[in-house]
């Protein structure tokens, strides 16, 4: 459960005295600041907040947050976090992982933490490369990525983190990028969601995979390349200065999405879809939209809460303990017993 009482903090309260050791210019700095800016706005209490990570550049994150933190082992953060939440469901858990940690070595745990719906925020920093091990292709690297392990270009097909999450049964999927001013809004929505909230954050690795997201993240022309989704709002994009002149509509024939022109702001005439964050099929179409012909879907793509795993565990524990006494002496003597008499040293029944 996320802290019900608003707690007063400032960004500074969430900074540790540890020297931040990411490369200068790394997108991780922006994400760190976004999180440190968001937590005071959410009224989070540092003593009830736990950042849990695996291994990789992103997983150094807990060291820089003045809260409880656990830097675990490669890929296993979801499993550790599940244990933390089952032991103390009141803790507000943030999971920090990357494309290698969360989708390659830890893909199995990621799938299960999502399908179980353990209440936590899962931030997957996707830089499409292994940074800390010096630049090998990752499971999200695009085909043809040249790296020390793929000198003439990678040839395995990349995974789409949001598709993976949706397929695994995630009930919240959000997407943003490191320097986006909207990232805190996505984080806030994720925090408000009861259950596992999956957030893919595109993150610029300036050393090994520089500017790989520039095609949609660059400020210039961003309006045409970014579709920021809001529940109950039409899916419009384009240059905001001149008014949104494009929208996403349903191509009924092909059961797909299509880009339509919006004339004079009349999106209804253009049949532009209104975003319904509780619609899983729509979420699937938005996640799978190919970038290029389509803009990149960002913001809260899917948000349809379901009962959490830890609530079910607590309930099951209470149900199976109901009416039973925790009497160790009785437990030890359970089943068919017999007594050996002191006088004879022989059983009496």
């Amino acid at each position, binding site marked *: 459960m996320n802290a019900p009482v608003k707690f007063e903090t400032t960004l500074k309260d969430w900074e*540790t005295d*540890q020297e931040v050791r990411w490369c200068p210019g790394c997108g991780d700095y922006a994400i760190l600041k976004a999180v440190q800016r968001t937590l005071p706005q959410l009224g989070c209490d540092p*003593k*009830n907040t*736990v950042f*849990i990570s695996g291994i990789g550049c992103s997983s150094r994150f*807990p*060291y820089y947050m*003045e*809260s*409880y*933190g*656990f*830097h*675990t*082992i*490669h890929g*296993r953060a*979801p*499993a*550790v976090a*599940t*244990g*933390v*939440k*089952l*032991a*103390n469901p*009141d*803790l507000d858990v943030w999971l920090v992982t990357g494309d290698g940690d969360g989708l390659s070595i830890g893909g*199995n*745990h990621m*799938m*299960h933490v999502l399908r179980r719906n353990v209440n936590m925020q899962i931030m997957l920093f996707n830089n499409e490369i292994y940074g800390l091990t010096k630049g090998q292709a990752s499971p999200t690297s695009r085909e043809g990525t040249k790296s020390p392990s793929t000198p003439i270009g990678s040839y395995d097909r990349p995974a789409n983190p949001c598709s993976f999450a949706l397929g695994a049964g995630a009930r919240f999927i959000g997407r943003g990028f490191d320097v986006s001013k909207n990232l805190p809004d996505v984080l806030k929505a994720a925090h408000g969601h009861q259950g596992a909230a999956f957030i893919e954050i595109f993150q610029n690795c300036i050393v090994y995979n520089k500017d790989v997201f520039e095609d949609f993240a660059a400020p210039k022309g961003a309006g045409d390349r970014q579709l920021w989704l809001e529940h109950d709002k039409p899916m419009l994009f384009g240059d905001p200065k001149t008014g949104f002149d494009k929208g996403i509509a349903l191509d009924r024939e092909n059961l797909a999405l299509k880009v339509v022109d919006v004339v004079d702001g009349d999106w209804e005439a253009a049949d532009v879809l209104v975003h319904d964050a509780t619609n899983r099929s729509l979420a699937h179409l938005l996640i799978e939209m190919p970038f290029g012909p389509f803009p990149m879907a960002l913001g809260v793509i899917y948000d349809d809460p379901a009962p959490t795993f830890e609530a079910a*565990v607590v309930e*099951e*524990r209470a149900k*199976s*303990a109901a009416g*039973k*006494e*925790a009497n*160790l*002496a009785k*437990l*030890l*003597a*359970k*089943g*068919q*017993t*017999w*007594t*050996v*008499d*002191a006088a004879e*040293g*022989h*059983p009496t*029944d």
Partner: protein
Amino acid sequence: MATLAKDTLTETPDAVVVRFAGDSGDGMQLTGGQFTLSTALAGNDLATFPDFPAEIRAPQGTLFGVSAFQINFGSREINTAGDAPDVLVAMNPAALKVNLPSLKPGGLVIIDTGEFSKRNLDKAKYDVSPLEDDTLAKWDVLAFDISALTIEAVKPFGLGNKDALRSKNMWTLGLALWMFDRERAPIEDWLKSKFKSKPEIADANIAALNAGHAYGETAELAGPIQQMSMPAVESAPGLYRTITGAEAISLGLVAGAQLAELPMFFGGYPITPASAILHHLARLKEFGVTTFQAEDEIAAICAAIGASYAGQLGVTSSSGPGIALKGEAMGLAIMTELPLVIVNSQRGGPSTGLPTKTEQSDLYQAIYGRNGDAPMPVVSCSAPGDAFECAIEACRIATQYMTPVMLLTDGYIANAAEPWKVPDPETFEPFPAKFLEEKNGEQLLPYKRDGKGARPWIKPGTEGLMHRIGGIEKAVDTGHIDYAPDNHQAMTDARVNKVLGVEVPDQEVTLGETSGKLALVGWGSTFGPIKRAVHNARAKGLDVSHIHVRHIWPLPGNLGELLKGYDTILVPEMNTGQFKTVLRDQFLVNAQPLTKTSGQPFTIAELESAIEGALS
């Protein structure tokens, strides 16, 4: 007191070994379990050995589908499930073929002729029926159609032949109960409760049980067998029950968590033969137990580490292959210095190995099997009842020293049953866990050690004690990331010394003298056969003693000196000599191996002959 079969047993045997063998679908484990209960209620000491195939339902009638249950019981102390059976019950040709070679010469074999069809004989690879040639000449034979008698007995209940034959095991149990003059009432009660929702099935089984019992009386009149009554064993006064190792470990973990005043979190993943612990604990939620069936072995231990971090007693359990997967996470628990109990129910290896057979071949894995210098206390159970105390001991060390602890058991202990004197929880020494509530210095020092070398346990949620831990090397006291050479040296030393400093009771001699010509030094489930073999050898006047080690790491402080008092040290173990190597390494003693890796426990005879060999 009468003899069981002519010339089978001595006039007044003080122990009898019975083996029930049949197809894996014949319910032999159930028969054995209920016979065990009746034996315990009759006041005999006992030990059992269930031996079943890895396949859930192997093809019917085949040699590899044979399931057996052996019980040794007597009016004296019983240490093992017995070497060779005095009585073999064979429910089909395959069961006869597989088990006959181990039957004691002159022993009694009871055979269901109803299953000796051509088809079943073929499956058991008998060219000629053993009932028709001299195959059984060495033994007393009681062969009759148990199948037909069962069908006859349950006829009034209107069951089809197939269902009726399912009661065959109860018919056989009835006969066995008659043979040893046992009460039928507890078995009837058990059947009534087991088939509460199907009273006609309960009645049919009870009818079969009674029919088998009645057949015994008739057979006695006819001649081949006689009833015998085994007097109760002399035992310490008190309340008793039977217990398997898996039950004892589960109860010990519950008791350990209570003594530490902590809720318990158990993360497990299904694996033979460890799953029984998960099953037991899943039914004990009222004791503050949370069980979590994880997606894999790694997640099971990682979730347990997460729970320990959040302030509960984390426990995980597996068998060798699963323990291998948990290795990296054990290192994390060592590095972050969090309490954790890891139960390893050992089985034959390597790889998948022998899932349902026993071995002690994970000793190196327990002591050394992690990357880096990763010291971890290791406690080993020697018998089902002993597993209870060992589990408490593991919880004590884990919480008092802030360390993961490996608790070793094996497939034999997990499944075997023995009478257990129910302990009084009032007599247990509590060891309440303490959490740091406020800063332990001008600044918080998460790695500041106490007199035992343990760091403080700090629960997330505690005001003002926010801090970060992880698998990267920690700075002394502050726990910040620190790769400096001197710091790694200091922290490696601190981790090693903490574990070496775990308080372990001095080693006692189980049987015999504190010095002499020969010591058999064992650990784990070899306890029973070693003790009996040493007992027998000493009765013959041989100078041999038995030392059984519970604390594998750190070893008891006096063990080295104790071992140096014997001319010869023999280390029987069900592996290729792992503990022998540890003893040589730690104490520079001439420990000699005595190894066995057949998936079967040592027999007493094997050990007696090794003792005689070592002393000749």
